[in-house]
């Protein structure tokens, strides 16, 4: 159709007014569309390549049988232990090393039951011990999950109320000039590199909290959680603030006209109307804390313990990847397990984001439209 357009050049007919085919236009449009596809492609590629590296865990059963014949059972002499302690001492803190050794000494009986074979790897994923760098590696993910959940909970307990209240202040009460100051300030907080927050937590906050609470381990889930709250606050604040200001003026005006005061309107009308948005904000905040690596690496002590005590050291999923990936042998079981942790993190944050995006936004739009009409 486009090719017929050029026949009658000086008479405007229906045909001549049609868009001409131009190669440059065509190419530019196709190239731009192609590049735009890149973001989707990246997501798919991340999915594919992070998963691909985990596959060996599920394929190794046959090879494991062969390997087992070659590798002779290692002895647990003092030499082996010393070597292990040194290598783990490099990446972990004093507390960890002690704990690792304690656990190691406690469970010599188990050694003969599950030795070395990779078939055991799959089973040990559900275990309670994370000891990848030992003569008999165990990849129990439970302490890592417990640690991550604990720190997420602590971080959200601090971040969510503070950020939501501050957003309410900014949206409902603050004078114009203060709001124009508050929003960029929090944007700047969002721009603080997490390594800087981690350093601040490690050097300043850890000592400060230790003086207040008087616990033993300087670095623990509490310090890490508070530091992570600093990283989560900007996200929760920004999205909550957007949700609060997006509420139709008619809502607040109706409330004020009925005789409610400003704070009553804010608390009983504006805030409930924005709940889906606030929910989304909290979800994204959780996603941020869940995947945060540097703060966890620097401020939590990194011992894989599964206790509920907030003042004990924890090791999060993300921090485990960050700390161990650099020292691992490519293609090793340990390597694959770290990628498995990575894929779980990815799937988790992906679903959180999808939930926040579709469920919450749909609900918010429906609510406003349904009530307005």
């Amino acid at each position, binding site marked *: 159709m486009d090719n017929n357009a050029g026949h009658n050049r000086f008479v405007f007919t229906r045909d001549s007014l049609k868009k001409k085919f131009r190669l*440059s*236009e065509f190419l530019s449009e196709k190239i*731009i*569309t192609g*590049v*735009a*596809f890149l*973001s*989707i492609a*990246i*997501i798919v*590629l*991340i999915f594919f*390549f992070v998963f*691909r*590296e985990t596959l060996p865990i599920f394929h190794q059963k046959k090879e494991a049988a062969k390997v087992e014949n070659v590798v002779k059972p290692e002895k647990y002499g003092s030499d082996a232990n010393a070597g292990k302690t040194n290598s783990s001492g490099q990446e972990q803190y004093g507390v960890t090393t002690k704990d690792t050794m304690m656990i190691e000494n406690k469970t010599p009986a188990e050694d003969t039951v599950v030795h070395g074979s990779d078939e055991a790897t799959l089973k040990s994923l559900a275990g309670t011990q994370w000891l990848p760098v030992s003569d008999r590696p165990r990849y129990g993910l439970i302490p890592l999950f417990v640690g991550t959940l604990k720190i997420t909970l602590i971080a959200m307990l601090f971040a969510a109320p*503070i*950020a939501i*209240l*501050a957003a309410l*202040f900014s949206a*409902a*009460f603050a004078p114009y000039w203060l709001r124009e100051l*508050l929003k*960029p*300030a929090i944007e*700047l907080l969002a*721009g*603080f590199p*997490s*390594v*800087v927050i*981690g*350093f*601040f937590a490690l*050097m*300043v906050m850890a000592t400060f909290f230790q003086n207040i609470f008087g616990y033993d381990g300087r670095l623990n889930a509490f310090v890490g959680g508070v530091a992570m709250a600093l990283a989560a*606050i900007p996200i929760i604040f920004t999205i909550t603030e957007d949700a609060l200001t997006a509420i139709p003026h008619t809502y607040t005006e109706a409330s004020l006209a009925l005789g409610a*005061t400003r*704070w*009553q309107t804010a608390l009983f009308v504006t805030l409930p109307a924005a709940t889906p948005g606030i929910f989304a904000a909290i979800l*994204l905040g959780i*996603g*941020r804390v869940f*995947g945060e*690596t*540097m703060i966890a*690496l*620097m401020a939590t002590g990194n011992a894989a313990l599964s206790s509920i005590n907030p003042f004990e050291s924890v090791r999060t999923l*993300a921090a485990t*990847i*960050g700390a161990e*990936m*650099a020292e691992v042998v490519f293609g090793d079981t340990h390597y694959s397990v770290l990628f498995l942790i*990575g894929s779980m*993190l*990815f799937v988790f*944050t*992906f679903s959180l*984001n999808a939930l926040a995006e579709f469920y919450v936004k749909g609900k918010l739009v429906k609510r406003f439209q349904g009530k307005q009409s």
Partner: protein
Amino acid sequence: MSRKRDITGGLFIGVTAFSALLIIAVIVILLVVIIIGGKGTFSWEFLTSFPQDGMMKGGIFPAIYGTVFLVLIMSIAAVPFGTITAIYLTEYASEKSILAQSIRFAVRTLATVPSIIFGLFGLGFFIKFVGGGMDNLFLGGQLKWGQPSILWASLTMALLTLPVVIVSVEEAIRTVPREMREASLALGATKWETILRIVLPGSRSGIMTGTILAVSRGAGEVAPILFTGAAYYLATLPTSLSDQFMNLGYHIYIMATQSANVDKTLPIQFATTMVLLLLTFTLNLTAVIIRARLRRKTK
């Protein structure tokens, strides 16, 4: 009755104001503590000299150099791609098409994926798949590209900062008035010419903000480069794309957690943190100011 209401109301407003104040206070405390801790060691020499005595003394020049190098290659990769995606989303795609919506969703997902996942992806895709493949294809299996290097670290970082660029460029493109586009089209310019001559120049400030924000993000992130190219200590500066490099954030992390004598190097650590913090802070502040101006203009 009304008095009681006033008290609860005042209390409630007070609590919200206190929360807002708390956040500001934390920002100020963080800045002040880091600056006070680092001020003593900070000097021109600190910025321009190499580490000495196993990092106990000396400066951080290689770390600064590596960070700048990283950020430069990252911008070269991220800014054009981000800008083109933003153009597609605003100029070509219709708002309701499934394609545009899925691209938007992908961009937002990219923005929320934990940075350590990008590191894993960089290792699995860039280093092992692309790099290893290049080695096998061109160098006959000789190891050159299939190992951590500044190129792979920069490209990994570019993926991480892509959403930052897309979002700010898109915002800026939307500020170009529709009348300008229509005038250009009415004068006989094609769509591509309009984009090139009208839309892009009109959104220059947005592209600039996007670049600045991406640079600041890329300079501060450490997790993606942990195993894609950052090195603990290098005696020489990286000269080619296949070299490893030192990085400010990584330097802080290593010095604070893994150096032999943490207490002795504390002033250096604070000074390094101060440099990184002030660098990202200044960049972000610039972006905030440009953006505020842009928003005022459109109002």
